[in-house]
Every structure is written in structure tokens, then in C-alpha cells.
């Protein structure tokens, strides 16, 4: 019996398996790097083109009228975006919470499944289709208005808020509900005074995520609220208002570079808002989940 040749170096099949393993690891790392690189390129190219055109006037003035597109700012679009998203939130937040309470606390299992499925399907409907829908039921008869745009955004937000709320309601420990019931508190009081308050943080961060999402919506607003007509600040939701997204879209295909640089600046503002709010909401949500032990 001779001693087997002992080597620490893998050979043959094992060597090949290790090489494949390393190769796949490198590919995975490369893919992750690519995604981060694309994010960096988008953020840097918007930042470098947009930040230069930012000044106080950009936030506090309206588009200059006449033949000088360089002057002025996008106050009207900022006001419009705030109005559109604000009203949409006022509509979608209470409705979304009610739907979630029904689905997770009160509904018989079968109805809950139907409602949940409807929410998920609504979530998958292309936003442009929702735009057409609101156009036919509202704008065709009453004309364009920010309210119509807000309703479209609310339809987009509702399933997002309802699903996020449902998720945190399920994270609220049953022991809290049971303790409340054991004290003889009725079911609705338990829901309103025990379950919802302890889920409130999660509900609000879910809503913030939904706000970040619809603040960037353009397609459903195209036919509902004004596109490229008014450029004065106005806060009446019954008037057609502009939004930052519509301004980016309509300035982006203007030949005059002054408009393009304004589109970049508006894109920069919007991107900062969206990225900052969604990141903050995600961090808060992660901490909240940990707190409830989900």
C-alpha cells in the first residue's frame, strides 16, 4: 500500500466546479455593480445638468412670458404637483385604511380574498388606462381639472396604501387585540383605539411610499389636467393645474435649450424629492417592522 498523493490544490472535476462557482459569483457581482452604476449615471447626469439651472427664482417665479424662456421658474408646477398629490392623498389614505381594516380585521375569508385580489389587480393596471377611465367619467363632461388628476392618482394610490396598511395590521400582535377584548372592549373600539394606533407608523410610511410613487406619475395626468397651457401659479383644484412631471415632459421636446435646461432642473427637484422620501420611508418601515417583530 502506497501513500496517496496528497495535494491541497483541487484538480479535475472539483477544480472545474470551483471555477464555475467563482465565475457565477463574479457574474452576480457584476450584475449588482451594473445596476448601481446605472443608478449613479442617471442621478449624476440629472444632477449635473439640473443643479446648474437652480436658483431662487426657479422655485419662486412662474415661467416668464413672451420670447425669453430663460427667465422665471416653475412655481406653478410645484404648486400644481403639491395640490394634485395632496388631494389624491386626502382621498386615498382614509379609503385605503378602511379597505385594509375590512380585509384584515373584519371580512369573512372569502370576501377578503376577493378584495385583496381586486387590490392587486388594480395595482397592475397601467396608469395610462386609469387616465383614460377618469377622462371618460369626468373630463369628457366637466373639462380638465386638477381634481380629475387627483382622482386618477388616488386610484393608483389606493391599492398601494391598502396593501401596505394590511401588512402592518397583520404585524400588530394578536395579543393586543385579545387583551383589549378580554377587558370587554368592543370590536370596533379595539380596531380604532388599539389596532390602528399601534399600526399608525407603518400606515404613514406606506402612505409616504405611495406619495413618492405618484409624485412621478405623468401618463394619467396627460389628458386630465393641463398640458402646456397655463403657466401661472394657481391653487384652485377645479382649474387645470400643471405638474412638475408634465413640465418635464413638455419642455423635453422643445428645441430651445433654455427649456431643456429647465426640464433638467425640474427633473432634479422631482428626483431629489422622490428618492429622498422613498428612501426615508423604507428605512422607517424596516425599523417599524423590526419593532413589531415581523
Amino acid at each position: 500500500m502506497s501513500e496517496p498523493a496528497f495535494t491541497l490544490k483541487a484538480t479535475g472535476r472539483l477544480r472545474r466546479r470551483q471555477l464555475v462557482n467563482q465565475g457565477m459569483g463574479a457574474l452576480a457581482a457584476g450584475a449588482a455593480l451594473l445596476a448601481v452604476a446605472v443608478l449613479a449615471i442617471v442621478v449624476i447626469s440629472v444632477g449635473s445638468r439640473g443643479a446648474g439651472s437652480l436658483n431662487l427664482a426657479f422655485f419662486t417665479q412662474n415661467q416668464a412670458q413672451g420670447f425669453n424662456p430663460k427667465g422665471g421658474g416653475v412655481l406653478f408646477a410645484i404648486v400644481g404637483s403639491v395640490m394634485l398629490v395632496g388631494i389624491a392623498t386626502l382621498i386615498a389614505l382614509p379609503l385605503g385604511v378602511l379597505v385594509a381594516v375590512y380585509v384584515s380585521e373584519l371580512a369573512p375569508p372569502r370576501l377578503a380574498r376577493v378584495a385583496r385580489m381586486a387590490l392587486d389587480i388594480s395595482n397592475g393596471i397601467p396608469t395610462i388606462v386609469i387616465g383614460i377611465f377618469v377622462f371618460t367619467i369626468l373630463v369628457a363632461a366637466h373639462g380638465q381639472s386638477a381634481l380629475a388628476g387627483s382622482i386618477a392618482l388616488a386610484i393608483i394610490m389606493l391599492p398601494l396604501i391598502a396593501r401596505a396598511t394590511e401588512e402592518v395590521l397583520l404585524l400588530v400582535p394578536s395579543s393586543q387585540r385579545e387583551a383589549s377584548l378580554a377587558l370587554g372592549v368592543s370590536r370596533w373600539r379595539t380596531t380604532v383605539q388599539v389596532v390602528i394606533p399601534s399600526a399608525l407608523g407603518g400606515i404613514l410610511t406606506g402612505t409616504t411610499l405611495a406619495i413618492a410613487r405618484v409624485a412621478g406619475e405623468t401618463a394619467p395626468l396627460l389628458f386630465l389636467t393641463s398640458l402646456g397651457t397655463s403657466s401661472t401659479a394657481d391653487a384652485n383644484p377645479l382649474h387645470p393645474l400643471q405638474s412638475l412631471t408634465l413640465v418635464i415632459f413638455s419642455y423635453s421636446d422643445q428645441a430651445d435649450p433654455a427649456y431643456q435646461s429647465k426640464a433638467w432642473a425640474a427633473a432634479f427637484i422631482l428626483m431629489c424629492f422622490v428618492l429622498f422620501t422613498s428612501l426615508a420611508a423604507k428605512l422607517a418601515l424596516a425599523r417599524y417592522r423590526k419593532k413589531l417583530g415581523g
Partner: protein
Amino acid sequence: MDKKSVLERTRGRLDRIGDPALKAITFAAAALAVTVLGLIAFELVRGSRLAFHRFGLGFVTSQTWDAIHNHFGALSLIFGTAVTSILAIAIATPLAIAIALFLTELAPKPVRALLGALVEMLAAIPSVILGLWGILVLGPFVQNQLEPFLNSTLGFLPFFRGPHSGTGILTAILILTIMVVPIVASVTRELFATVPPELREGALALGATRWEMVRGVLLPAARPGIFAAVALGFGRAVGEAMAVLMVIGSQIGIHLSLFAHSDTLAARIAGQYNGSSTNLQTSSLVYLATILLVISLAVNIGAQLLIKPIDRRPRRRRIALDRAFEAQGLSAD
């Protein structure tokens, strides 16, 4: 004593109204959410009736879109939608799975959360901003670098021939890929995280390399979920209007070349609905929206059915809770 009993009596009455009232209000809200879904379908079908009467199902197989002669068909738009979405999801899926693997298996622990957040930030960028970037930054790169390169290396294929242009199918595919990758990656990442550690450890203990563990354990365990994630990403790509409208070139016609201009269902609706000159054109655009709705419903319901088996636990918990309520005689059922 007297006062307290009054309080208790009113409180009891409030509670008697409160339970059914809460149930009724929340039910109404849920019913509204379901109704809106039905109403959307109803209004779209109603709005497309004119075009349906005129063109019937032949609308789907006709290539023309001619506002002057009032003849409309969806085929080239369906083709554009299919090519851009399918190729985007085909590029995005392996990338997204690779990213998810890196984030759950390979990346050093402290980096994971940060990288995951960065990938999700990519999903948060509004589509109109990606469109703007697509026209003014990606477009010139596609025209001056990518298309000449593809043409010189793969030009023997019909897909990579023709005049170079910053706008067109190729740019749209790249933009859609950027939009879809983070969606599929973040769902896939959650799926991998839910695979029980014993399975991983078992494979590794048997001497599998990490990649063999991934291929033999992780991917099969997550497979139905990954299909669902891909379906959701595909639905998103099909429904994207703005970014595609801005970069695809808005032209009717079916071309083999990826360098050619084209158009998709969603982009055509976004581009023409405001300027539509006749009722028939408007109705044809709503017809397109109906087709879009049908596709996205099919994709989404398919995805739901795939995810369903994963979604059991919360329900069981809720039923247990319902029983607890009923045991107290408090259920309003």
C-alpha cells in the same frame, strides 16, 4: 352611581351601533375599490364600442393607423409592445436574479442593506425622468456607440441593420430594462430570503459549491415566485407609457430591425389621445386601452395564481382571530 350607569348605557348603545357601523363603512370602502375596477373595464369597453363596430376583431390584425382615411388597427402597436417588453424582460430577468443572488448570498453583510436600497432607488426614479435621460443622454450613446458596434459585430442578422438613431426600439428596450430590473430583483431577493436556511446548509454540508447550492436548492425553491415576479415586471413594461413614448420614435410599421422607430399600445394612447381629431380615432385609442387592460389583467391574474400558495399564513391567523371574537359573542357576522 346613577351617572355611571348612564355612561355605561350610552357606551353600550354606541358599541351596539359601532360594530355594525365600522363593518358597514369598511365594507363600503372595499366594495368601492372592487367597483372601480369593474367600472374601469366597463367604461373602456363602452368607449371602444364605436371602433369595435367599425373594425371588429380585425382591429387586432390590421397594421394601418391612418387618421386621414380614418382607418385604424393595432397590429403594429401590439408588435412594438411585444418586442420591447419581451426583450426587456429577457434581458432583465437574468440580471435581476443575479443581483438578488449577490444581495442575499455573496455581498458582505454590512453592504447588503445599502446595495439593496440602491437597487430599490432605481425603481423609484419616475418614468418621465428616465424618458428625459433616455432622449438626451442614452439616445446619443445608442446612436453613436451601441448601434454602430452592434451593426459591425452582429450586422449579419437582420435585427441589427438600418440607419442609426438615438430613438427607436433599442433605446426603448434599454429604458424598460432599467425600469424592470429593480422590480424583479427586489421580489426575487425576498423570495431567496424566505428559503429555509436548513436547505442551504444541507446542500453545502453535502459538499456542494455555493453555485451548486443556488442551482440545486435556491432556484428550484423560489421558482414559482420568480415566474410571478417576471410576470409582474412584464406587466409593468407593457403598461409603461411615458418613458417609451419619449424614446421610441412613434412610428407605425413592423420592422425586424431593432434600430427602427416603432410604437407601443400605451405610448400611442399617451401620444395621441389629446390631439385626437375624430370620435373614431378617440374610440380606437380607447380600444387600444382595452387591449392593454386585457393583457395586464391576464398577466397579473397569472402572477397572483403563481404567488397564491405562498400567501397562506396571515389568513389562518385571521381565522383564528375571528374565532376568538366569536367566542366572546362580539362578532358582527
